[in-house]
Protein backbone atom coordinates (compact mmCIF):
# COMPACT_ATOMS: atom_id res chain seq x y z
CA UNK A 1 0.00 0.00 0.00
CA UNK A 2 1.19 3.53 -0.71
CA UNK A 3 2.00 4.90 2.70
CA UNK A 4 0.89 8.46 2.29
CA UNK A 5 -2.82 7.80 2.08
CA UNK A 6 -5.98 9.22 3.60
CA UNK A 7 -6.15 6.65 6.40
CA UNK A 8 -2.59 7.46 7.51
CA UNK A 9 -3.26 11.20 7.31
CA UNK A 10 -6.37 10.82 9.44
CA UNK A 11 -4.45 8.94 12.12
CA UNK A 12 -1.76 11.63 12.21
CA UNK A 13 -4.34 14.41 12.28
CA UNK A 14 -5.86 12.94 15.45
CA UNK A 15 -2.41 12.73 17.07
CA UNK A 16 -1.67 16.35 16.19
CA UNK A 17 -5.05 17.52 17.49
CA UNK A 18 -4.60 15.67 20.78
CA UNK A 19 -1.11 17.15 21.20
CA UNK A 20 -2.41 20.61 20.36
CA UNK A 21 -5.19 20.23 22.93
CA UNK A 22 -2.56 19.58 25.60
CA UNK A 23 -1.21 23.09 25.08
CA UNK A 24 -4.56 24.89 25.01
CA UNK A 25 -6.14 26.69 27.96
CA UNK A 26 -9.13 24.32 27.94
CA UNK A 27 -7.80 20.94 26.87
CA UNK A 28 -10.94 19.09 28.02
CA UNK A 29 -13.26 20.99 25.73
CA UNK A 30 -10.82 20.85 22.80
CA UNK A 31 -10.42 17.09 23.23
CA UNK A 32 -14.12 16.36 23.49
CA UNK A 33 -14.73 18.37 20.34
CA UNK A 34 -12.15 16.54 18.19
CA UNK A 35 -14.77 14.24 16.57
CA UNK A 36 -17.05 17.21 15.90
CA UNK A 37 -14.27 19.43 14.58
CA UNK A 38 -13.05 16.77 12.21
CA UNK A 39 -16.52 15.77 11.05
CA UNK A 40 -18.67 18.89 11.49
CA UNK A 41 -22.41 18.96 10.84
CA UNK A 42 -23.05 18.81 7.14
CA UNK A 43 -19.57 17.49 6.34
CA UNK A 44 -19.65 15.80 2.96
CA UNK A 45 -16.54 13.70 3.31
CA UNK A 46 -17.62 10.95 5.66
CA UNK A 47 -15.42 7.92 5.22
CA UNK A 48 -18.05 5.45 6.39
CA UNK A 49 -21.84 5.22 6.27
CA UNK A 50 -22.33 8.64 7.88
CA UNK A 51 -20.54 11.33 9.89
CA UNK A 52 -21.97 9.90 13.12
CA UNK A 53 -20.10 6.65 12.76
CA UNK A 54 -17.01 8.62 11.73
CA UNK A 55 -17.29 10.62 14.95
CA UNK A 56 -17.46 7.50 17.09
CA UNK A 57 -14.36 6.13 15.40
CA UNK A 58 -12.58 9.46 15.88
CA UNK A 59 -13.38 9.30 19.58
CA UNK A 60 -11.75 5.87 19.77
CA UNK A 61 -8.75 7.15 17.81
CA UNK A 62 -8.39 9.94 20.37
CA UNK A 63 -8.52 7.33 23.11
CA UNK A 64 -5.62 5.41 21.55
CA UNK A 65 -3.74 8.70 21.06
CA UNK A 66 -4.09 9.17 24.82
CA UNK A 67 -2.69 5.69 25.39
CA UNK A 68 -5.83 3.66 26.08
CA UNK A 69 -6.81 0.34 24.52
CA UNK A 70 -10.13 0.64 22.78
CA UNK A 71 -10.87 -2.85 24.09
CA UNK A 72 -10.67 -1.46 27.64
CA UNK A 73 -13.74 0.75 27.25
CA UNK A 74 -16.41 -0.01 29.85
CA UNK A 75 -18.63 3.04 29.57
CA UNK A 76 -19.47 4.41 26.14
CA UNK A 77 -20.47 7.74 27.66
CA UNK A 78 -17.04 8.36 29.15
CA UNK A 79 -15.74 11.48 27.39
CA UNK A 80 -12.28 11.87 25.86
CA UNK A 81 -11.48 14.44 28.56
CA UNK A 82 -11.94 11.78 31.26
CA UNK A 83 -9.37 9.58 29.53
CA UNK A 84 -7.09 12.61 29.34
CA UNK A 85 -7.40 13.16 33.10
CA UNK A 86 -6.52 9.51 33.69
CA UNK A 87 -3.56 9.70 31.31
CA UNK A 88 -2.15 12.62 33.29
CA UNK A 89 -2.29 10.53 36.46
CA UNK A 90 -0.65 7.50 34.84
CA UNK A 91 2.78 6.66 36.25
CA UNK A 92 3.91 4.11 33.68
CA UNK A 93 2.88 3.59 30.07
CA UNK A 94 0.24 0.98 29.34
CA UNK A 95 0.61 -2.35 27.59
CA UNK A 96 -0.20 -4.03 25.20
CA UNK A 97 1.05 -1.56 22.68
CA UNK A 98 -1.47 -2.26 19.91
CA UNK A 99 -5.24 -1.95 19.86
CA UNK A 100 -7.94 -2.74 17.31
CA UNK A 101 -10.58 -0.05 16.92
CA UNK A 102 -13.36 -2.52 16.32
CA UNK A 103 -15.83 0.15 15.14
CA UNK A 104 -13.31 1.09 12.44
CA UNK A 105 -12.63 -2.49 11.35
CA UNK A 106 -14.67 -3.05 8.25
CA UNK A 107 -14.85 -6.78 8.95
CA UNK A 108 -13.33 -7.73 5.59
CA UNK A 109 -14.74 -10.94 4.14
CA UNK A 110 -12.71 -14.05 4.86
CA UNK A 111 -9.88 -14.43 2.38
CA UNK A 112 -11.42 -16.06 -0.65
CA UNK A 113 -11.35 -16.56 -4.37
CA UNK A 114 -14.20 -15.23 -6.37
CA UNK A 115 -15.19 -15.07 -10.03
CA UNK A 116 -15.79 -11.53 -11.28
CA UNK A 117 -18.07 -10.50 -14.10
CA UNK A 118 -15.05 -10.47 -16.39
CA UNK A 119 -15.85 -14.18 -16.77
CA UNK A 120 -16.87 -14.95 -20.35
CA UNK A 121 -18.28 -18.38 -19.60
CA UNK A 122 -15.88 -19.68 -22.21
CA UNK A 123 -15.93 -23.03 -23.93
CA UNK A 124 -12.69 -24.25 -22.37
CA UNK A 125 -13.79 -23.73 -18.75
CA UNK A 126 -10.35 -24.67 -17.54
CA UNK A 127 -11.28 -23.36 -14.07
CA UNK A 128 -13.85 -26.10 -13.79
CA UNK A 129 -11.38 -28.70 -15.06
CA UNK A 130 -8.59 -27.84 -12.62
CA UNK A 131 -10.78 -27.47 -9.53
CA UNK A 132 -10.04 -30.47 -7.30
CA UNK A 133 -13.17 -29.92 -5.18
CA UNK A 134 -15.84 -29.45 -7.80
CA UNK A 135 -16.48 -25.99 -6.36
CA UNK A 136 -17.14 -24.19 -9.65
CA UNK A 137 -20.66 -23.95 -10.97
CA UNK A 138 -21.95 -22.01 -13.93
CA UNK A 139 -24.83 -19.69 -13.21
CA UNK A 140 -26.31 -17.59 -15.98
CA UNK A 141 -23.35 -18.53 -18.14
CA UNK A 142 -20.73 -17.28 -15.67
CA UNK A 143 -18.51 -19.08 -13.19
CA UNK A 144 -19.55 -19.07 -9.53
CA UNK A 145 -17.36 -20.40 -6.72
CA UNK A 146 -19.25 -22.31 -4.08
CA UNK A 147 -17.69 -21.13 -0.78
CA UNK A 148 -18.80 -24.34 0.99
CA UNK A 149 -16.68 -26.46 -1.31
CA UNK A 150 -13.80 -24.11 -2.19
CA UNK A 151 -10.55 -24.80 -0.31
CA UNK A 152 -8.74 -21.64 -1.46
CA UNK A 153 -6.15 -23.53 -3.50
CA UNK A 154 -6.10 -20.84 -6.21
CA UNK A 155 -5.76 -23.22 -9.15
CA UNK A 156 -8.79 -21.73 -10.92
CA UNK A 157 -7.30 -18.25 -10.70
CA UNK A 158 -4.13 -19.44 -12.40
CA UNK A 159 -6.10 -21.36 -15.03
CA UNK A 160 -8.44 -18.56 -16.16
CA UNK A 161 -7.18 -16.98 -19.41
CA UNK A 162 -9.28 -13.83 -18.78
CA UNK A 163 -7.96 -13.16 -15.26
CA UNK A 164 -11.60 -13.24 -14.22
CA UNK A 165 -10.98 -15.03 -10.93
CA UNK A 166 -9.44 -13.00 -8.17
CA UNK A 167 -8.24 -13.53 -4.65
CA UNK A 168 -9.62 -11.13 -2.05
CA UNK A 169 -7.22 -10.92 0.87
CA UNK A 170 -7.59 -9.49 4.37
CA UNK A 171 -4.83 -6.89 4.39
CA UNK A 172 -3.96 -7.03 8.09
CA UNK A 173 -3.91 -10.83 8.24
CA UNK A 174 -1.88 -10.89 5.05
CA UNK A 175 0.65 -8.46 6.52
CA UNK A 176 1.03 -10.30 9.83
CA UNK A 177 4.09 -12.57 9.64
CA UNK A 178 2.98 -14.75 12.56
CA UNK A 179 -0.79 -15.18 12.32
CA UNK A 180 -1.46 -13.07 15.40
CA UNK A 181 -4.43 -11.16 14.01
CA UNK A 182 -7.58 -13.12 13.22
CA UNK A 183 -11.31 -12.73 12.92
CA UNK A 184 -13.63 -12.99 15.84
CA UNK A 185 -16.08 -15.53 14.40
CA UNK A 186 -18.99 -13.80 16.16
CA UNK A 187 -18.47 -10.27 14.87
CA UNK A 188 -16.21 -10.82 11.86
CA UNK A 189 -13.88 -8.16 13.24
CA UNK A 190 -10.20 -8.60 13.78
CA UNK A 191 -8.66 -9.29 17.17
CA UNK A 192 -4.99 -9.41 18.16
CA UNK A 193 -3.70 -12.45 20.03
CA UNK A 194 -1.11 -10.88 22.29
CA UNK A 195 0.52 -14.22 23.04
CA UNK A 196 1.50 -14.34 19.36
CA UNK A 197 1.89 -10.67 18.41
CA UNK A 198 5.46 -9.44 17.84
CA UNK A 199 4.41 -5.77 17.64
CA UNK A 200 6.12 -5.33 14.28
CA UNK A 201 3.36 -2.88 13.31
CA UNK A 202 2.78 -4.29 9.83
CA UNK A 203 -1.00 -4.64 10.40
CA UNK A 204 -1.13 -1.02 11.48
CA UNK A 205 0.42 0.28 8.30
CA UNK A 206 -1.46 -2.08 5.99
CA UNK A 207 -5.06 -1.76 7.24
CA UNK A 208 -6.89 0.39 4.66
CA UNK A 209 -9.36 1.51 7.36
CA UNK A 210 -6.63 2.43 9.87
CA UNK A 211 -8.46 0.24 12.38
CA UNK A 212 -5.30 -0.76 14.20
CA UNK A 213 -3.60 1.78 16.36
CA UNK A 214 -0.64 1.88 18.70
CA UNK A 215 -1.11 3.21 22.21
CA UNK A 216 0.57 6.56 22.29
CA UNK A 217 2.76 7.72 25.17
CA UNK A 218 2.68 11.28 23.89
CA UNK A 219 0.65 12.79 26.70
CA UNK A 220 2.70 10.99 29.35
CA UNK A 221 5.87 12.50 27.93
CA UNK A 222 4.37 15.98 27.49
CA UNK A 223 3.40 15.88 31.15
CA UNK A 224 6.81 14.65 32.34
CA UNK A 225 8.64 17.24 30.22
CA UNK A 226 7.43 19.82 32.71
CA UNK A 227 9.69 18.28 35.34
CA UNK A 228 12.63 19.62 33.35
CA UNK A 229 14.93 16.59 33.41
CA UNK A 230 13.87 14.52 30.44
CA UNK A 231 16.52 13.15 28.09
CA UNK A 232 15.66 12.49 24.46
CA UNK A 233 17.45 9.47 23.01
CA UNK A 234 17.04 9.81 19.26
CA UNK A 235 17.33 6.73 17.05
CA UNK A 236 19.82 6.73 14.16
CA UNK A 237 16.85 6.59 11.78
CA UNK A 238 15.74 10.11 12.75
CA UNK A 239 17.58 11.58 9.76
CA UNK A 240 15.05 13.05 7.33
CA UNK A 241 12.03 12.04 9.41
CA UNK A 242 11.29 15.65 10.27
CA UNK A 243 11.94 18.85 8.38
CA UNK A 244 15.20 20.74 8.83
CA UNK A 245 18.68 19.54 9.68
CA UNK A 246 19.65 17.23 12.53
CA UNK A 247 21.18 20.07 14.61
CA UNK A 248 17.96 22.07 14.08
CA UNK A 249 15.89 19.13 15.22
CA UNK A 250 18.02 18.77 18.32
CA UNK A 251 17.36 22.35 19.32
CA UNK A 252 13.66 21.84 18.49
CA UNK A 253 13.67 19.00 21.03
CA UNK A 254 15.27 21.30 23.59
CA UNK A 255 12.64 23.95 22.88
CA UNK A 256 9.96 21.31 23.40
CA UNK A 257 11.36 20.77 26.90
CA UNK A 258 13.99 18.04 26.77
CA UNK A 259 16.97 18.96 28.92
CA UNK A 260 19.39 17.07 26.72
CA UNK A 261 19.45 15.07 23.52
CA UNK A 262 21.59 12.04 22.79
CA UNK A 263 22.01 10.20 19.52
CA UNK A 264 21.42 6.49 20.05
CA UNK A 265 23.99 6.10 17.26
CA UNK A 266 26.52 6.42 20.08
CA UNK A 267 24.98 3.42 21.79
CA UNK A 268 25.06 1.69 18.42
CA UNK A 269 28.84 2.08 18.46
CA UNK A 270 28.90 0.12 21.71
CA UNK A 271 26.65 -2.52 20.19
CA UNK A 272 29.00 -2.72 17.19
CA UNK A 273 32.12 -3.17 19.29
CA UNK A 274 30.60 -5.80 21.54
CA UNK A 275 28.76 -7.62 18.82
CA UNK A 276 31.88 -8.00 16.70
CA UNK A 277 33.83 -9.22 19.73
CA UNK A 278 31.03 -11.64 20.58
CA UNK A 279 30.90 -12.88 17.01
CA UNK A 280 34.65 -13.54 16.90
CA UNK A 281 34.53 -15.32 20.25
CA UNK A 282 31.54 -17.52 19.47
CA UNK A 283 32.74 -18.49 16.00
CA UNK A 284 36.15 -19.41 17.42
CA UNK A 285 34.34 -21.57 19.98
CA UNK A 286 32.71 -23.48 17.16
CA UNK A 287 29.27 -21.83 17.04
CA UNK A 288 27.83 -22.00 13.50
CA UNK A 289 26.51 -18.43 13.35
CA UNK A 290 25.05 -15.58 15.39
CA UNK A 291 22.18 -13.23 14.61
CA UNK A 292 21.86 -9.58 15.54
CA UNK A 293 19.78 -8.64 18.56
CA UNK A 294 18.91 -4.99 17.99
CA UNK A 295 15.50 -5.40 16.32
CA UNK A 296 12.86 -5.84 19.05
CA UNK A 297 10.20 -7.24 16.71
CA UNK A 298 12.70 -9.95 15.75
CA UNK A 299 13.41 -10.68 19.42
CA UNK A 300 9.65 -11.06 20.03
CA UNK A 301 9.49 -13.34 16.99
CA UNK A 302 12.23 -15.55 18.41
CA UNK A 303 10.58 -15.63 21.84
CA UNK A 304 7.14 -16.52 20.53
CA UNK A 305 7.68 -18.33 17.25
CA UNK A 306 11.30 -19.30 16.68
CA UNK A 307 12.57 -20.84 19.94
CA UNK A 308 15.09 -22.89 17.97
CA UNK A 309 16.84 -19.62 17.08
CA UNK A 310 17.28 -18.55 20.70
CA UNK A 311 20.83 -19.97 21.18
CA UNK A 312 22.04 -18.09 18.09
CA UNK A 313 20.80 -14.61 19.01
CA UNK A 314 23.61 -12.34 20.12
CA UNK A 315 23.68 -11.42 23.81
CA UNK A 316 24.85 -7.91 23.00
CA UNK A 317 22.51 -5.22 24.36
CA UNK A 318 20.74 -2.98 21.86
CA UNK A 319 21.85 0.56 21.05
CA UNK A 320 18.84 1.83 23.03
CA UNK A 321 19.85 -0.27 26.05
CA UNK A 322 23.45 1.00 25.98
CA UNK A 323 22.37 4.59 25.59
CA UNK A 324 19.73 4.42 28.33
CA UNK A 325 22.06 2.61 30.71
CA UNK A 326 24.59 5.40 30.36
CA UNK A 327 22.04 8.12 30.86
CA UNK A 328 20.83 6.37 34.02
CA UNK A 329 24.33 6.17 35.39
CA UNK A 330 25.11 9.79 34.67
CA UNK A 331 21.72 11.18 35.64
CA UNK A 332 19.76 8.64 37.70
CA UNK A 333 16.75 10.92 38.14
CA UNK A 334 16.36 11.74 34.46
CA UNK A 335 13.23 10.75 32.54
CA UNK A 336 14.54 8.73 29.60
CA UNK A 337 12.61 8.92 26.32
CA UNK A 338 13.58 6.91 23.28
CA UNK A 339 12.38 8.45 20.01
CA UNK A 340 12.32 6.15 17.01
CA UNK A 341 10.26 4.63 14.19
CA UNK A 342 9.40 1.50 16.12
CA UNK A 343 6.40 0.16 17.99
CA UNK A 344 8.08 -3.00 19.26
CA UNK A 345 10.65 -0.82 21.03
CA UNK A 346 7.83 -0.11 23.50
CA UNK A 347 7.85 -3.77 24.43
CA UNK A 348 11.63 -3.75 24.78
CA UNK A 349 11.40 -0.61 26.92
CA UNK A 350 8.79 -2.20 29.19
CA UNK A 351 11.36 -4.88 30.02
CA UNK A 352 14.18 -2.38 30.54
CA UNK A 353 13.95 -0.19 33.65
CA UNK A 354 16.41 2.27 32.11
CA UNK A 355 13.91 3.38 29.44
CA UNK A 356 10.88 5.26 30.73
CA UNK A 357 9.06 6.12 27.50
CA UNK A 358 9.12 5.42 23.78
CA UNK A 359 7.83 7.84 21.19
CA UNK A 360 7.48 7.35 17.45
CA UNK A 361 8.59 9.98 14.94
CA UNK A 362 4.92 10.53 14.12
CA UNK A 363 4.21 11.32 17.75
CA UNK A 364 7.22 13.62 17.95
CA UNK A 365 5.93 15.40 14.84
CA UNK A 366 2.51 15.75 16.45
CA UNK A 367 4.03 17.09 19.67
CA UNK A 368 6.06 19.70 17.78
CA UNK A 369 2.91 20.71 15.92
CA UNK A 370 1.02 20.95 19.21
CA UNK A 371 3.74 23.11 20.74
CA UNK A 372 3.86 25.24 17.59
CA UNK A 373 7.55 24.58 16.97
CA UNK A 374 8.71 24.96 13.40
CA UNK A 375 11.89 22.88 13.09
CA UNK A 376 13.10 24.94 10.13
CA UNK A 377 13.02 28.08 12.26
CA UNK A 378 15.14 26.53 15.02
CA UNK A 379 18.81 27.42 15.43
CA UNK A 380 21.36 24.70 14.84
CA UNK A 381 22.56 23.06 18.05
CA UNK A 382 26.32 23.58 18.24
CA UNK A 383 29.34 21.51 19.25
CA UNK A 384 27.60 18.18 19.34
CA UNK A 385 29.55 14.94 19.56
CA UNK A 386 29.61 13.36 16.10
CA UNK A 387 28.68 9.71 16.16
CA UNK A 388 30.49 7.52 13.68
CA UNK A 389 29.30 6.40 10.28
CA UNK A 390 28.98 2.86 11.66
CA UNK A 391 26.73 3.88 14.56
CA UNK A 392 24.52 6.06 12.41
CA UNK A 393 24.40 3.38 9.74
CA UNK A 394 22.24 1.15 11.99
CA UNK A 395 19.25 3.08 10.61
CA UNK A 396 19.11 1.17 7.35
CA UNK A 397 19.16 -2.46 6.40
CA UNK A 398 22.72 -3.89 6.16
CA UNK A 399 24.01 -1.09 8.41
CA UNK A 400 24.71 -3.39 11.34
CA UNK A 401 26.60 -5.77 9.07
CA UNK A 402 28.76 -2.93 7.70
CA UNK A 403 29.49 -1.74 11.22
CA UNK A 404 30.44 -5.14 12.60
CA UNK A 405 32.51 -5.87 9.51
CA UNK A 406 34.40 -2.60 9.94
CA UNK A 407 35.60 -3.47 13.42
CA UNK A 408 35.53 -7.26 13.51
CA UNK A 409 38.92 -8.77 14.18
CA UNK A 410 39.89 -10.97 11.26
CA UNK A 411 36.91 -9.65 9.34
CA UNK A 412 37.75 -11.67 6.27
CA UNK A 413 35.97 -14.63 7.83
CA UNK A 414 32.69 -12.78 8.30
CA UNK A 415 30.05 -14.25 6.01
CA UNK A 416 27.07 -12.00 6.37
CA UNK A 417 23.46 -12.85 5.60
CA UNK A 418 20.72 -10.29 5.49
CA UNK A 419 17.10 -10.77 6.51
CA UNK A 420 15.63 -7.58 5.12
CA UNK A 421 12.04 -7.77 6.39
CA UNK A 422 10.38 -10.52 8.41
CA UNK A 423 7.51 -12.39 6.79
CA UNK A 424 6.22 -15.95 6.88
CA UNK A 425 8.81 -17.01 4.29
CA UNK A 426 11.86 -15.53 5.98
CA UNK A 427 10.74 -16.90 9.35
CA UNK A 428 10.48 -20.38 7.86
CA UNK A 429 13.88 -19.93 6.23
CA UNK A 430 15.44 -18.89 9.53
CA UNK A 431 14.00 -21.89 11.28
CA UNK A 432 15.90 -24.06 8.81
CA UNK A 433 19.09 -22.12 9.45
CA UNK A 434 18.73 -22.85 13.16
CA UNK A 435 17.85 -26.51 12.88
CA UNK A 436 19.79 -27.57 9.76
CA UNK A 437 22.49 -25.45 8.18
CA UNK A 438 23.07 -21.76 7.73
CA UNK A 439 24.86 -20.42 4.64
CA UNK A 440 26.52 -17.58 6.58
CA UNK A 441 27.96 -16.95 10.02
CA UNK A 442 26.57 -13.51 10.78
CA UNK A 443 22.86 -12.91 10.26
CA UNK A 444 21.45 -9.40 10.40
CA UNK A 445 17.70 -9.37 10.98
CA UNK A 446 15.44 -6.39 10.37
CA UNK A 447 11.71 -6.82 10.82
CA UNK A 448 11.00 -3.86 8.54
CA UNK A 449 12.01 -4.04 4.91
CA UNK A 450 14.70 -1.42 4.38
CA UNK A 451 15.49 -1.32 8.09
CA UNK A 452 14.41 1.14 10.76
CA UNK A 453 14.04 4.03 8.32
CA UNK A 454 10.87 2.42 7.04
CA UNK A 455 9.47 1.58 10.47
CA UNK A 456 5.73 1.82 11.21
CA UNK A 457 6.13 5.04 13.22
CA UNK A 458 8.21 6.81 10.61
CA UNK A 459 7.10 9.97 8.93
CA UNK A 460 9.61 10.73 6.17
CA UNK A 461 9.63 9.30 2.68
CA UNK A 462 11.84 6.18 2.86
CA UNK A 463 13.58 6.91 -0.44
CA UNK A 464 14.43 10.50 0.42
CA UNK A 465 15.42 9.43 3.91
CA UNK A 466 17.84 6.87 2.50
CA UNK A 467 19.45 9.57 0.35
CA UNK A 468 19.83 11.89 3.32
CA UNK A 469 21.19 9.07 5.44
CA UNK A 470 23.81 8.14 2.83
CA UNK A 471 24.87 11.78 2.67
CA UNK A 472 25.17 11.97 6.46
CA UNK A 473 27.16 8.74 6.62
CA UNK A 474 29.63 10.13 4.08
CA UNK A 475 30.24 13.07 6.38
CA UNK A 476 30.54 11.07 9.59
CA UNK A 477 33.93 9.81 10.79
CA UNK A 478 34.63 6.07 10.67
CA UNK A 479 34.50 4.33 14.03
CA UNK A 480 38.09 3.11 13.75
CA UNK A 481 39.40 6.68 13.51
CA UNK A 482 37.94 7.56 16.89
CA UNK A 483 40.57 7.46 19.64
CA UNK A 484 40.15 4.10 21.31
CA UNK A 485 40.63 5.67 24.75
CA UNK A 486 37.31 7.49 24.52
CA UNK A 487 35.67 4.09 24.36
CA UNK A 488 37.48 2.55 27.32
CA UNK A 489 36.84 -0.71 25.68
CA UNK A 490 34.85 -3.76 26.41
CA UNK A 491 33.88 -4.47 29.92
CA UNK A 492 30.62 -6.27 29.63
CA UNK A 493 29.87 -8.35 32.67
CA UNK A 494 28.04 -11.62 32.38
CA UNK A 495 24.62 -10.06 32.76
CA UNK A 496 25.26 -8.02 29.66
CA UNK A 497 25.16 -4.72 31.48
CA UNK A 498 27.69 -2.02 30.82
CA UNK A 499 30.19 -1.64 33.60
CA UNK A 500 31.80 1.52 32.38
CA UNK A 501 30.74 5.04 31.65
CA UNK A 502 31.95 7.32 28.95
CA UNK A 503 32.01 10.96 29.90
CA UNK A 504 31.75 12.16 26.35
CA UNK A 505 28.00 11.73 26.12
CA UNK A 506 27.05 14.92 27.85
CA UNK A 507 29.91 17.01 26.50
CA UNK A 508 27.82 19.96 25.46
CA UNK A 509 24.70 19.59 27.55
CA UNK A 510 23.64 21.32 30.71
CA UNK A 511 25.95 21.89 33.63
CA UNK A 512 23.85 19.87 36.04
CA UNK A 513 24.25 16.75 34.00
CA UNK A 514 27.98 17.26 33.77
CA UNK A 515 28.31 17.65 37.51
CA UNK A 516 26.25 14.51 37.94
CA UNK A 517 28.58 12.68 35.63
CA UNK A 518 31.51 13.59 37.80
CA UNK A 519 29.59 12.35 40.82
CA UNK A 520 28.88 9.04 39.17
Amino acid at each position, binding site marked *: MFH*DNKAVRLR*KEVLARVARAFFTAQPDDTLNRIPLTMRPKGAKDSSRCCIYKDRVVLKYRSMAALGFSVESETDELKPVSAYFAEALQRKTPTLPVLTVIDEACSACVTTCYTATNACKGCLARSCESVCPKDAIEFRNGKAWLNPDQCVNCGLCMKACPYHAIIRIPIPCEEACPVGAITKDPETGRETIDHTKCTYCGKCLTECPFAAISDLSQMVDVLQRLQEGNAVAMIAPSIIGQLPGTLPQLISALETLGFSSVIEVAEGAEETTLHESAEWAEKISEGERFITTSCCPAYIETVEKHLPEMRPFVSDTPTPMAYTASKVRKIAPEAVTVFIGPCIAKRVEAAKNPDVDYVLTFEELG*AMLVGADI*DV*FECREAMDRPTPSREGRGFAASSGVTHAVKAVAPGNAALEPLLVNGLDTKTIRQMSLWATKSCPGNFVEVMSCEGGCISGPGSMG*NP*RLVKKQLDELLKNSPPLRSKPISTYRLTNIDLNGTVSRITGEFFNESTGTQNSRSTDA
Partner: protein
Amino acid sequence: MKKVTVSICTGTTCYLMGGAHLLTINERLDPSTLDSVEFKGAHCLGLCSNESNGKPPFVKVNEHLVSDATLNKVLDAIRKELKEIQHVS
Protein backbone atom coordinates in the same frame (compact mmCIF):
# COMPACT_ATOMS: atom_id res chain seq x y z
CA MET B 1 11.09 31.80 -20.34
CA LYS B 2 8.67 32.21 -17.53
CA LYS B 3 8.75 29.40 -15.00
CA VAL B 4 6.16 27.75 -12.83
CA THR B 5 7.09 28.21 -9.18
CA VAL B 6 6.26 25.34 -6.84
CA SER B 7 6.56 25.92 -3.09
CA ILE B 8 6.06 22.86 -0.94
CA CYS B 9 5.49 23.92 2.64
CA THR B 10 7.95 22.25 4.99
CA GLY B 11 6.43 23.53 8.20
CA THR B 12 6.20 20.79 10.81
CA THR B 13 2.44 20.38 10.31
CA CYS B 14 2.62 20.00 6.54
CA TYR B 15 5.61 17.69 6.78
CA LEU B 16 3.78 15.46 9.27
CA MET B 17 0.60 15.35 7.23
CA GLY B 18 2.34 14.05 4.11
CA GLY B 19 4.49 16.93 2.87
CA ALA B 20 7.50 14.66 3.35
CA HIS B 21 6.26 12.49 0.48
CA LEU B 22 5.48 15.45 -1.77
CA LEU B 23 9.19 16.24 -1.91
CA THR B 24 9.55 13.39 -4.41
CA ILE B 25 7.54 15.38 -6.95
CA ASN B 26 10.46 16.20 -9.23
CA GLU B 27 10.81 12.46 -9.90
CA ARG B 28 7.23 12.32 -11.12
CA LEU B 29 7.41 15.29 -13.45
CA ASP B 30 7.95 14.84 -17.18
CA PRO B 31 11.71 15.43 -17.64
CA SER B 32 11.07 17.73 -20.60
CA THR B 33 9.11 20.10 -18.39
CA LEU B 34 11.58 20.05 -15.48
CA ASP B 35 13.36 23.13 -16.91
CA SER B 36 10.15 25.14 -16.81
CA VAL B 37 9.45 24.36 -13.18
CA GLU B 38 11.23 25.90 -10.26
CA PHE B 39 11.00 24.19 -6.87
CA LYS B 40 11.35 26.44 -3.91
CA GLY B 41 12.13 25.02 -0.52
CA ALA B 42 9.48 26.86 1.42
CA HIS B 43 9.61 27.53 5.10
CA CYS B 44 6.23 27.32 6.80
CA LEU B 45 3.77 29.21 4.62
CA GLY B 46 1.66 29.85 7.70
CA LEU B 47 -1.48 28.48 6.06
CA CYS B 48 -2.31 25.82 8.65
CA SER B 49 -3.23 28.37 11.33
CA ASN B 50 -6.44 29.22 9.48
CA GLU B 51 -8.80 26.31 8.87
CA SER B 52 -10.53 28.14 6.02
CA ASN B 53 -7.42 27.47 3.92
CA GLY B 54 -8.27 23.78 4.01
CA LYS B 55 -6.16 20.94 5.31
CA PRO B 56 -2.39 20.54 5.34
CA PRO B 57 -0.14 19.69 3.55
CA PHE B 58 -0.14 22.88 1.49
CA VAL B 59 1.61 23.54 -1.79
CA LYS B 60 1.64 26.75 -3.79
CA VAL B 61 1.87 26.45 -7.55
CA ASN B 62 2.42 30.04 -8.74
CA GLU B 63 -0.48 31.82 -7.03
CA HIS B 64 -2.66 28.72 -6.93
CA LEU B 65 -3.02 27.11 -3.48
CA VAL B 66 -3.31 23.32 -3.25
CA SER B 67 -4.59 22.08 0.10
CA ASP B 68 -4.70 18.47 1.35
CA ALA B 69 -2.07 18.12 -1.35
CA THR B 70 -1.19 14.83 -2.97
CA LEU B 71 1.38 14.18 -5.67
CA ASN B 72 -1.36 13.93 -8.29
CA LYS B 73 -3.11 17.13 -7.20
CA VAL B 74 0.16 19.05 -7.37
CA LEU B 75 1.10 17.52 -10.72
CA ASP B 76 -2.28 18.56 -12.13
CA ALA B 77 -1.82 22.09 -10.85
CA ILE B 78 1.67 22.28 -12.38
CA ARG B 79 0.44 21.01 -15.76
CA LYS B 80 -2.36 23.55 -15.75
CA GLU B 81 0.04 26.41 -15.11
CA LEU B 82 2.45 25.08 -17.74
CA LYS B 83 -0.34 25.13 -20.31
CA GLU B 84 -1.08 28.75 -19.52
CA ILE B 85 2.55 29.70 -19.97
CA GLN B 86 2.67 27.97 -23.34
CA HIS B 87 -0.57 29.67 -24.27
CA VAL B 88 0.86 33.12 -23.54
CA SER B 89 4.14 32.53 -25.34
